[in-house]
């Protein structure tokens, strides 16, 4: 069985949850013996490049000696398509960045608060036209390659999936990692919504990463419930081995928020809850790790509340710094307003950090040993943080049983489940 998969990001360059999930899922599928033709958009910075590039294991800068990667590469065919589309950006943000690049050249200043997206090349006047162009490439790919099924991840690749389906006549699965309602609340971008809706209508099967998202798909996009299946994400077990211990230099307990500082992640509720605790207990430090369009507002708010002595910002963290941040933390809080899944609490648990998660998250469906609060309920959030910090029994229990739960969330299980869906559709 061979799958044409329109995915995102590839190790070692993973910058967010979508890339992590794609990578995990493909590994799980490979373990179940599924062959994959993995297509990824990528800006080469080389205008003469062919429209699609086959990448071999030797081109990738990862430690190929690692057995896992070797097996991975044996079964996967990895294609890079020249495109400027990037995950985690709204059309508006995309416009802003492209325009800035045009005016400032490629010499935009590096800041600890900005994740740098590299854009180069001649295309990309708007995100929408890039998405359409990517779809064109996809239909060409579909006629040139042999496969049994099409699998597309998130809205930017839905048009590619639809195009591949009409070119080949093969069944299409779309995988919903997030919807426009998660990203923008009620003020959705109508164009994005329409692309999502078209993708869902054209799909033969829809995979959602949680029941929370499944409900949104059914209610907001009016999709027949029979077509929508939940397959929860898992978590990368490798991180477990790589976990490092860092020396703590601070005596105070540390409460961490780690993620994009955007509306969707609910950073403002974290600040308000922090304020409540700092008023009562000065023996705590709060850390907001990450960057995003709400960061400056958060910094201002922290100064306004006069809690900056106990509330710190790190900017965007990557790689080892993320693990370091987890290992320094006593509680991890994910107050997301709307989180289709949310892998980060699982990663925190693997670093032995108890977590508090919002009820409006997919991950709350798979974690029983975590405190769950409504994102807007800052009193409950403050209560929970205080409890975990002060009652050791509570945090011990959460760490112990939470970890067991996390250990059972394996990508091979996810792969097995998804393979089952493929089979259902084919036979």
């Amino acid at each position, binding site marked *: 069985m061979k799958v044409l998969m329109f995915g995102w990001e590839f190790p070692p360059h993973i910058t967010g949850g979508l890339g992590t999930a794609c990578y995990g899922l493909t590994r799980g599928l490979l373990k179940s013996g599924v062959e994959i033709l993995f297509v990824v958009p990528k800006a080469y910075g080389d205008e003469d490049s062919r429209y699609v590039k086959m990448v071999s294991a030797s081109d990738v800068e990862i430690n190929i000696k690692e057995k896992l990667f070797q097996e991975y590469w044996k079964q996967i065919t990895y294609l890079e398509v020249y495109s400027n589309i990037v995950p985690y950006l709204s059309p508006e943000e995309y416009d802003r960045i492209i325009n800035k690049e045009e005016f400032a050249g490629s010499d935009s200043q590096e800041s*600890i608060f900005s994740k740098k997206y590299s854009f180069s090349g001649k295309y990309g006047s708007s995100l929408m036209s890039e998405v359409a162009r990517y779809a064109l490439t996809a239909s060409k790919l579909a006629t040139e390659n042999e496969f049994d099924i099409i699998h597309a991840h998130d809205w930017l690749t839905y048009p590619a999936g639809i195009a591949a389906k009409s070119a080949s006549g093969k069944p299409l699965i779309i995988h919903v990692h997030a919807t426009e309602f998660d990203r923008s609340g009620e003020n959705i971008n109508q164009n994005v919504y329409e692309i999502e809706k078209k993708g869902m209508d054209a799909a033969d099967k829809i995979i959602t990463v949680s029941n929370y998202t499944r409900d949104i798909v059914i209610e907001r996009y009016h999709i027949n419930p029979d077509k929508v299946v939940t397959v929860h994400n898992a978590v990368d077990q490798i991180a477990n081995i790589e976990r490092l211990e860092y020396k703590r230099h601070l005596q105070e307990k540390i409460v961490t928020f780690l993620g994009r500082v955007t509306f969707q992640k609910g950073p403002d509720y974290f600040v308000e809850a922090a304020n409540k605790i700092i008023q009562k207990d000065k023996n705590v430090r709060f850390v907001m790790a990450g960057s995003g369009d709400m960061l*400056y507002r958060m910094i201002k708010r922290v*100064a306004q509340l006069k809690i900056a002595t106990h509330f710190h910002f790190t900017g965007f963290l990557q790689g080892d710094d993320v693990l370091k941040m987890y290992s320094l933390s006593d509680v991890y809080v994910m107050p997301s307003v709307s989180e289709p899944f949310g892998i980060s609490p699982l990663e925190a648990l693997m670093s032995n950090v108890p977590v508090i998660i919002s009820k409006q998250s997919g991950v709350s469906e798979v974690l029983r040993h975590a405190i769950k609060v409504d994102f807007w309920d800052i009193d409950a959030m403050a209560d929970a943080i205080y409890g975990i910090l002060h009652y050791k029994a509570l945090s011990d229990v959460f760490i112990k049983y939470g970890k067991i739960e996390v250990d059972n969330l394996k990508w091979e299980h996810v792969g097995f489940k998804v393979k089952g869906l493929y089979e259902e559709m084919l036979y």
Partner: protein
Amino acid sequence: MRNICFYFQVHQPFRLKTYRFFDIGANHYYYDDYQNNYIMNRVANKCYLPTNQILLDLIKEYGTRFKVAFSISGCALDQFEMYAPDVLKSFQQLADTGCVEFIGETYAHSLSALKNKDEFEYQVKKHSEKIQALFGQQPKTFRNTELIYSDQIGAMVANLGFNTMLTEGAKHILGWKSPNFLYYNPINPTLKLLLKNFQLSDDIAFRFSQQTWGEWPLTTEKFVDWLNNVDQKEEIINLFMDYETFGEHQWPETGIFEFLKALPGKVFANSNYSFVTPSEATKKLQPVAPIHVPYPISWADEERDLTAWIGNELQDQAFDTLYALRDKVIQCDSFDILKDWKYLQTSDHFYYMCTKWFSDGDVHKYFNPYNSPYEAFINYMNIIADFTIRVEEKYNNTTMSNQDVQKNIEQIEIKQTRKQITSNTQTEDNRFYKIDQIIGFSDIKTKKVIKDCKPEVLAYAFMDMDEKIKEKFMKNITVRDLKVVKTIMENITKVNSSDITESRRTIENIMAKY
């Protein structure tokens, strides 16, 4: 005879390095040495050295007819000593001419006048001491950071023994009055006020090279014409500016150096003006009226107020957090803490957090090492968090855990040993040996020396020791002693070079016994 009073501000802050959350509690060094060294040397070569030379030549040429005044912040003086001693020397040459007045200010170029009277007085005193030590003058004229002034601040300054103070001739305090007279403080009339003529000052400091300015290019003829056009009854033109105007803000290519070289000659030839220092002006002129300044003013930006440094949420929290520490800081008996306390007060750190980017954005951006005020705030608050921990630790021993108490006792013991070392060296100052001569000692003798040394002494002496000498010690020390020495070395967090020297002297004294 009418008067021109030239006054230049010289200041360089200790810029802070990128200090991340992970550094809090782990890393207690806050300064960007590379930047500070680099900028100091750049400005020294572009501005301080060449301009000092020009002033020196002018004084040579015109004798006591040409005079200027400087206010050099303590931070700048410290950095001269660290990075550019030749600049300090050239200022000292200027001081020796007798034509240059050095003005008092706060040591750290701080905003303490707005927050804490005691701290303000302490810093002014420290700065005066430094000026006295370096230039042999006791400042009688004062200028507060960025010319910040109010009636209250003036009264404080008068109480500290100053008789003249400089400030901005801000339109909103002067109204119809002219800045070109001597005024006085309404609370304490013994304090005379010299007000900056911002029109003529800024013609040189800001507009000199602006080609869009209608009067560009500015020549000395034109400038002296303007001076002559000033009403004959008006007595003094105060030209106050950043010293870095010459060569740094206005590049040499703009002709700023030639302008400065030619100006005194043109003034003497074509006008009835003469040059005075601020204290001479006070002696020479009669004050005409009090100036009422109920709310602080400064020389910054269009508003001439304090909003460049305080007022937004970020600045206010940083400012309040810093000064809340003062009571504890002054009780800390630690050179390092007091040093950081001074440098963290420098007004520039708050200036970087300014969010009113639009009207005066260019000037702000030019001086700002951060991409945004938010980054400046975060960096500063991280450092303050670490500084607070250090201050609390030093100040407050009562909340320590058992382990910490143990550690503290050990530290105190080490201190006591150090004291003994000091007293030893005082009595036996006739040394026969140098520590490197231990290499010539037999192993038996070396062992005896080591046996007579306290492990603390060895630990300090081993710091930065030449490998060959250290090897000699290592060869002869017992495993048990070595272990003790190593633990002590690990517990030593800060070493002063004086400790090392003292410890080595003690060993040298013991060597003399054998």
